[in-house]
C-alpha cells in the first residue's frame, strides 16, 4: 500500500511537456518576487530584530573580556552548533550529487543557500579566536596538533579556514545559481533583474557554458566538502580537545563532523517542510525528497552511535587514569544528565522513530524528528564544549591528565547573554537565508528542468514506472 502511494507520487512528478517546463520556470522564479505578502515581511523583520539582538549581545560579550575562559564554554558550543546547523547543511546537496542521485534536485538549492547563513558562524568565531589560549602557556608549550609552530598558528589558520569556508560556500551558491539567475534576468524586472543580470555573467545556456558550469560546480562542491571537514577537524581539536589535559581521542574530529552533518540534515528537513508548505511547492518538493532526507537522517543517527561507542569502548577498557578522567569529563561527570539527554535525543529517540517506514514518508513526523535531533545536538555540544573551557587552567593544561578531585562537581549554567547569543545568531543565519531567497529562486529551476528532461514515465509490463537518465 505504502509502496503504491510512493510510486504514484513519484510518477506524478514526471512532467514531460514544454508547457509544464515553462510553468515550472515561472512558478519558481516567482518565489523571488517581493509581493510575498505581509507574513513574509513579518518573519523577515522578526529574525532581523533577533539577529540585531545577537550582534548587541556579542558586543557585550567582547567587552566582558577574554580572561575568564570558563565563561566562553557556551559560546564555543554555539559556534560548534552553527558549523553543524548551517555549515554542513549544503552537504545534503553535495553528497547525492557526487553519487549521481536524482532525488535531491528540488532541495539542493535550499541546502546550498545555508552557505549564506554561515555568516553567523564567521562573525562569532573571531572573538572566540581571541579567547583561545596561545600554544605557550605559563612559559611552556601546551600539547597541540601544531606542535612547535608559532604560538598563534591555530588562531591564524582557523580564522583563514572559516573565512575560506564561507567564501567557497558563497562561490558554490553563486555557481550553482547562474542558470537560475539568468532565468530571473529574463523573467523579472527592475532592481532584481539588474542584479541578476550582473550575477548571471551573460549566461545564455550554450553547450560550452554548461560544460564549464558543470566543471565549476564539481570543483566548488569538492572544495567546500574538504574545507568543511578541515574546519571541523581544527575546531574540534583546537577549541575543545586541546583544552583538556590528557584527552586524546583520534576519532573525535570525525565525530564532530558527523554530528554536524546530522544537525545539518535536521535543519534541511525543517526548512524543506516549511518552504514546501508556505511557498506551496508540493508539486515540486515531493515525498521522494522527504524520503531521501529521512534515509540520510537514519544513517546519521547510527553514525552518531558508532563514533561515540568507538571512543567510549577504548576509554572504558583502557582503565588508565587518563581514560577514567576522559569518561568522567565526557560521560558520567558533572554533565552526566546532559550526556543522557544528548544520547537519547541524538540517537535513541530519532532512530527509534525513523526506523518505521510510514514515518519516513510523513513530513510532520520528520519535522518532529529533526527538532528532537537538533535539541540533542545542542545538548551534545554543551557536554563537549562547556566542560572543556571549564576545566582549562594554566596550571592544569600541562598535566598528563586532570586528577579526579580537580574535575568540577557541578556544571556551569548558561547566562542570559549565552541565551541571547544563541537565539540571535541562529536568527542571523535564518535572516541571511531569507535574504538570499529574495534574489535566488528557492528551488533550482535548472535542476528541475534537468529532472524533467532526464525522467520518463513509462509503461512497464502491467505496471507503470519512471526511468531516470544517468548521463556521464
Amino acid at each position, binding site marked *: 500500500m505504502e509502496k503504491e502511494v510512493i510510486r504514484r507520487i513519484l510518477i506524478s512528478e514526471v512532467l514531460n511537456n514544454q508547457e509544464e517546463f515553462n510553468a515550472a520556470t515561472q512558478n519558481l522564479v516567482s518565489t523571488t518576487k517581493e509581493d510575498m505578502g505581509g507574513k513574509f515581511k513579518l518573519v523577515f523583520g522578526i529574525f532581523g530584530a533577533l539577529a540585531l539582538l545577537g550582534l548587541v549581545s556579542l558586543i557585550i560579550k567582547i567587552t566582558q573580556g577574554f580572561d575568564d575562559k570558563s565563561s566562553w564554554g557556551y559560546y564555543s558550543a554555539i559556534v560548534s552548533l552553527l558549523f553543524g546547523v548551517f555549515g554542513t547543511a549544503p552537504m545534503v546537496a553535495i553528497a547525492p550529487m557526487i553519487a549521481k542521485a536524482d532525488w535531491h534536485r528540488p532541495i539542493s538549492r535550499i541546502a546550498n543557500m545555508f552557505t549564506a547563513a554561515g555568516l553567523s558562524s564567521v562573525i562569532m568565531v573571531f572573538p572566540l579566536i581571541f579567547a583561545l589560549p596561545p600554544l605557550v602557556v605559563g612559559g611552556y608549550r601546551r600539547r597541540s596538533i601544531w606542535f612547535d609552530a608559532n604560538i598563534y598558528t591555530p588562531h591564524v589558520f582557523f580564522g583563514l579556514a572559516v573565512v575560506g569556508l564561507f567564501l567557497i560556500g558563497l562561490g558554490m551558491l553563486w555557481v550553482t545559481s547562474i542558470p537560475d539567475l539568468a532565468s530571473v534576468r529574463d523573467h523579472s524586472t527592475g532592481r532584481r533583474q539588474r542584479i541578476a543580470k550582473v550575477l548571471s555573467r551573460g549566461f545564455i545556456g550554450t553547450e560550452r557554458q554548461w560544460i564549464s558550469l558543470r566543471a565549476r560546480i564539481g570543483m566548488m562542491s569538492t572544495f567546500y566538502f574538504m574545507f568543511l571537514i578541515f574546519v571541523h577537524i581544527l575546531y574540534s581539536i583546537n577549541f575543545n580537545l586541546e583544552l583538556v589535559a590528557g584527552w*586524546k581521542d583520534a576519532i573525535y574530529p570525525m565525530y564532530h563532523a558527523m554530528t554536524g552533518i546530522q544537525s545539518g540534515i535536521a535543519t534541511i528537513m525543517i526548512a524543506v517542510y516549511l518552504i514546501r508548505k508556505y511557498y506551496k511547492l508540493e508539486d515540486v518538493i515531493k515525498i521522494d525528497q522527504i524520503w531521501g532526507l529521512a534515509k540520510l537522517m537514519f544513517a546519521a543517527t547510527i553514525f552518531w552511535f558508532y563514533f561515540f561507542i568507538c571512543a567510549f569502548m577504548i576509554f572504558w*577498557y583502557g582503565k*588508565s587514569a587518563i581514560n577514567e578522567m576522559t569518561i568522567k569529563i565526557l560521560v558520567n561527570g558533572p554533565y552526566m544528565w546532559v550526556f543522557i539527554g544528548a544520547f537519547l535525543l541524538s540517537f535513541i529517540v530519532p532512530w527509534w522513530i525513523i526506523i518505521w517506514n510510514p514515518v519516513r514518508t510523513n513530513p510532520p513526523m520528520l519535522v518532529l524528528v529533526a527538532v528532537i535531533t537538533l535539541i540533542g545536538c545542542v545538548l551534545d555540544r554543551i557536554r563537549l564544549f562547556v566542560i572543556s573551557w571549564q576545566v582549562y587552567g594554566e596550571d592544569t593544561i600541562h598535566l598528563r591528565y586532570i586528577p579526579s578531585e580537580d574535575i568540577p562537581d557541578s556544571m556551569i549554567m548558561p547566562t542570559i547573554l549565552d541565551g541571547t547569543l544563541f537565539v540571535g545568531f541562529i536568527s542571523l543565519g535564518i535572516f541571511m537565508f531569507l535574504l538570499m531567497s529574495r534574489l535566488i529562486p528557492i528551488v533550482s529551476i535548472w535542476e528541475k528542468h534537468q529532472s524533467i528532461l532526464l525522467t520518463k514515465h513509462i509503461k512497464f509490463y502491467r505496471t507503470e514506472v519512471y526511468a531516470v537518465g*544517468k548521463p556521464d
Partner: protein
Amino acid sequence: MQQRRILSEKQINSELLNGNLATPKWYFPVMGVLGIAVVIGFSTILYMFNRGLGVTGLARPVYWGLFITTFVFWVGISHAGIMISAILRLTQAEWRRPVTRAAELLTVFSLLTALFFPLMHAGRPWRIAYWLLPYDFARGIWPNVRSPLFWDPIAIGTYLTGSTLFLFVALIPDLAILRDRTTGIKKGVYTVLALGWRGNPRQWQLQVVAGILLSALMLPIFVSVHSIVSWDFAVTPAVEGWHSTIFAPYFVIGAVHSGVSAVVTMMCLMRWLWKWNNYIRPEHFDALARLLIVVATAWLGFTFLELIFSLYGRDAPEIALRELQIFTWPWNLIFITFLLTGYIIPVGCWLFKRCRNNIAVMFWTTILVNVGMWLERFLIIVPGLARKQIFVYTWEGYWPSPVEWIIMAWSFAWVSFLMLLFARFFPLVPLFEAKESQVFTTEMKVGRATVPMVIRE
C-alpha cells in the same frame, strides 16, 4: 557512462554458464598448480603443529606477527561482499549487478581462510575450545566474555553464516537454471540446492525481500566484525600505537578499501579468463574506481588523524615508536611502500578516466592496493610489539620464518583454489541479475545525446 549491451536471455545463459557446462582449457592446469600450492601449505601447517611455534619467527616480545597480520588482512578482504552487495543494493546502484556474486564469494572464502590463522597462531589449535568454553567448572575457570578476543569468533562466525546465506539466497534462481540444463548426479545436486525454484511471482517476491532484509541485517554485522578485530588491539593500553579510539572506523574503511580492490582484481580475471566482456565492462571498472577514490581518500584521512594523534600526546615512547615506523630501516621502506601502493600510485592513476577504463591498469593498481593494505596491518601490529618497553627483558627484530611465508602464500592459493572450484559448478556472474539489468535499463534521446536510463519503481 553506461555502455548498454542488448543481450538475449539465451545468450546470457550460454555465455555466463560457459564455465559450468563446459570446462575451459586453462582450468585444470591452473587448478593443478593451485592444488599443489594448497597441499604444500597444509603440509607446512601440519609440520608446524608437529614441531610447535618455534619454527616461526615469533618470539617475545613480538608474539603477534605474520599470522595475525594475514588474519586481519583476510577479514578486511571479506568486507568486499557486503560493501558491493548490500550497500550498493540498498542504494540501488545499477552497476553493481555483475560483481555481486564474486564479491559475496570472496567474503565467504576469505572469512573461512581468516579463521585458520588464529587457530594456527594458537600453536595447539585443539585447545582453542578452552578459550570459548568453560573447561574447569570446579575451579571456576571461565573464558573472559568481556574480551574482544572472545567476541571475535562470535562476530566472524555470525558474519560467515550471514554471508553464506546471502550468497545462497542470491544463487537459487541460477541453480534452477543449472538444474534444467544438466543431467545425472549434477542435476540431482542442483535440484536439491534449487529448493524447488520455478520462478513464479511469489518466489521472486520472497527472493527480493530476502535479499533486501539480509542486506540490511548484514550491515551492522559488517561494521561490527572489523571493529571488534580492531578492538583486539585498541583495548590494550600497554602496547604503544594500539590504544587509539580511531581504530574501529579506521579498520573498517581500510577493509572496504582492500575488499573492493580485491573485487576489482577478481573482475579483471573473470573478464580475461571467461571472456565476459559483455557483462564486466569498462563502465563497471570506472564506477568502482570512483568509489575507491572516495574510500581511499577517507582512509588516508583516518591514517593522517591516527598519526597526528599519536604524536599529539608528546609521550616519548609513542614518538619513539613512530620514529621506528617511519624513519628506521627496514620499517621506513615498508612505510613508504605502504603509502605508495596503498594510496599514491593507485589513486593517482584512478583520477584519470583513461586509467579507470583500462582493465590492465585497474588490475595492477588494485593488486598494489592490497600489497599496501597488507603492509599497513604489518606496520600496525609488529613495530608496537618489537620496540623495547620497560617490562620487556628482550627486544629483538622480528622477521617471519619461511614457514610463516609459506603459510601466508598458501592462504592466497587456498582462496583462489576455492574460488575456481566454485566457478566450476556455479556461475560467477549472477544470471538473473544480468537479465534483470536488461529489463531495468533503457535509453532515451535528450537533444542529440543518447542517455542510458535506469528504471526506478
